């Protein structure tokens, strides 16, 4: 098998001097959909944030290679430009910044970093409208300020919209399914599935088997107390749904 797109080795990270990631080992191949499940507070969002490059996390050991590069050495915007995308568990409200402006600025900043030409406003609008249509989102979203006053579900859908526009190679979806009603879950899952291809890797963090019924994972990993405690296929998700995490809780 070729080198995985993402490979995490013995990753340790602390927040405020508290060790949260205690030696993560995880490899995900190009085109693979990996699900990460685990109890509250086990470090799932911490892992996503470390991968996306958020300040405030101290990596004390280990390494992360992405597409042959040292991911942890890169600024967040460099990671984005090479194709890393994280859908936030809690998307940030940014009043005063219009969603369309933001999305186009982000897209063009990434294109510029890759040496590609900018997308003009008209082409952008065409693509944005088509994407919104697929996600059954109102065009009004483009005119509204980024996440400001959005409902919880709208925020999550906006993350998926951004992802679809930015076309990342590695997308980490941190509990994108929580807060969605049943119809929205189906729509979001359809949007995510539409993005599956042999080049694109998805890391789907979720608490529920329900999302995985739509977005069927190639692998399932249990993150407990800062470590990957078990890995398996989709059967593992079903097992967790039945038995819970009791077996993985620290004694």
């Amino acid at each position, binding site marked *: 098998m070729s080198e995985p797109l993402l490979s995490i080795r013995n990753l340790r990270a602390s927040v405020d001097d508290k060790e949260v990631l205690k030696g993560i080992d995880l490899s995900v191949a190009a085109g693979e959909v990996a699900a990460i499940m685990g109890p509250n507070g086990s470090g799932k969002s911490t892992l996503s944030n470390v991968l*996306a*490059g*958020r*300040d405030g996390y101290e990596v004390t050991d280990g390494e992360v290679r992405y597409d042959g590069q040292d991911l942890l050495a890169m*600024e*967040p*915007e460099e*990671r*984005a*430009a090479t194709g890393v*995308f*994280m859908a*936030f568990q809690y*998307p*940030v409200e*940014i*009043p*005063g*910044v219009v969603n369309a402006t*933001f999305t186009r*600025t*982000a*897209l063009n*900043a*990434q294109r510029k*970093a890759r040496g590609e030409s900018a997308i003009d406003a008209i082409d952008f609008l065409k693509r944005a409208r088509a994407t919104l249509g697929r996600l059954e989102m109102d065009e009004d979203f483009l005119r509204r*300020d980024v996440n400001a006053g959005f409902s919880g579900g709208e925020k999550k859908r906006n993350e998926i919209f*951004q992802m679809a526009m*930015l076309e990342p190679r590695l997308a980490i979806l941190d509990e994108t399914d929580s807060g969605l009603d049943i119809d929205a879950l189906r729509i979001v899952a359809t949007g995510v599935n539409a993005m599956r291809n042999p080049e694109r890797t998805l890391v789907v963090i979720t608490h529920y088997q329900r999302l995985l019924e739509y977005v069927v994972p190639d692998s399932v990993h249990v993150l407990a107390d800062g470590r990957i405690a078990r890995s398996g296929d989709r059967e593992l998700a079903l097992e967790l749904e039945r038995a819970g995490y009791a077996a993985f809780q620290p004694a």
Partner: protein
Amino acid sequence: MRPSSQPDTMTDAWLAGQRTAFAACRDSLPGSGTPWVDALRAEAFRQFEEDGPPTARIEEWRSGPTAALTGQVFAPAAPDGARAAAVPAPYLEGPRHRLVFVDGRFSPDHSDAGEPPEGVRLTTLSALLAENPQAARDLIGDPDAFAEERLSRVTDRRPQALVALNTALASDGAVLLIEDGVALAHPLEVVHVARETEEPRAHHLRTLIALGAGARAHVVEVHAGGSAGVWTNHVTDIAVGAGARLEHVRADAGSETAVHVNVAHARLRAGAAYAGFVLAATGGAVRTETRLSLEEPGADGEVNGVCLARESGHIDALTRLDHHAREGTSRQLWRGIFADTARGAFQGRIRVLPDASGTNAALDNRNLLLNAGARAESKPELEILTDDVACSHASATGELDADALFYLRSRGLSEQLARALLMEAFTGAVADRIAHEGMREFVRRLVDDRLHALGSATS
């Protein structure tokens, strides 16, 4: 701690310098030789001396840039036709009336007053006083419209030394007088260009705007040029007639090293509306005052501002909104961004007097500090002397939102671009309130330019 005042020897020297200046130029100022003008100027200078120099001992000047002002003696700039001035291209796109003043004097070559409609008198203070001083006195409307006495009534509290000094020494300024029911369709752009100077030079500018009942106008006053030795002391005296509406922008577009004092006073009659916007941008020192007097029922006052300071710059913004009569409304929205070791102070006072029941007044001031060395202080003051009012105020000072910055960067924006976008969003809400599209676009461009300077200074 900051010293509470300058040494008296410094202010003594400053006062002596102003005396010399007044003695030297009183006979050559516009209107001199006309008894009422001479008397007004003499009385104003006497009042200036009585009020004394601005020091931190005076409550309204506690956080003011007093040292920058009185630390050196700025002599009034003499007319100097020999040196060319760099006059900027028009700021407003589309049709406009434009008056340009260079070093405090009207420059006909750079101006284009256009053809104001009938019922509009667009001129200069010097022309008005030269052509027919007695008529000027009547034309201005109120017999004491250009009188120190009236300004002091608007301000309701002395000392106002710099306003008095301005009355004594005003060298020129724009005059816009509009009769009842007349609208000035195109905006008026007034540009004050200060030439660079080695010697400390003062420019005492006086703008006069009087709108009759139901009149309409849009006015932009811009300061351009300038250098470290320049002090502008600019007073804009405004009367808005019953049901009339004035939209008024004051903006710094010039050197960030000059010292600016801008004071606007507006009196609002019944149902009148004044909408003011201030852009203060500096690495030097700026004091900006806006004083509105809502004198009759149903008046509406809006005073918004953006303050951007960097390096060791200092911006002191002061508003005083006095609701004298019932059913008045007022809104204030102020945003400040301070970089490096800059500091800012906002004093916003809303006074609701006993006859002003049914008043609705809101004030909102927020500041961003970009560096650990920057400081901002926000002081809203509500003085409410009647029941049945709705007043609100909010103020906060903080840093750029780290979560928002990360969110933007994680989508590919560089740190600098992300910061710029957040700063634009922060100030954009204020500029958005400008109703006139051309004026709003001008302010947006200018704010973006200045934000860019702020961003590149810090990252």
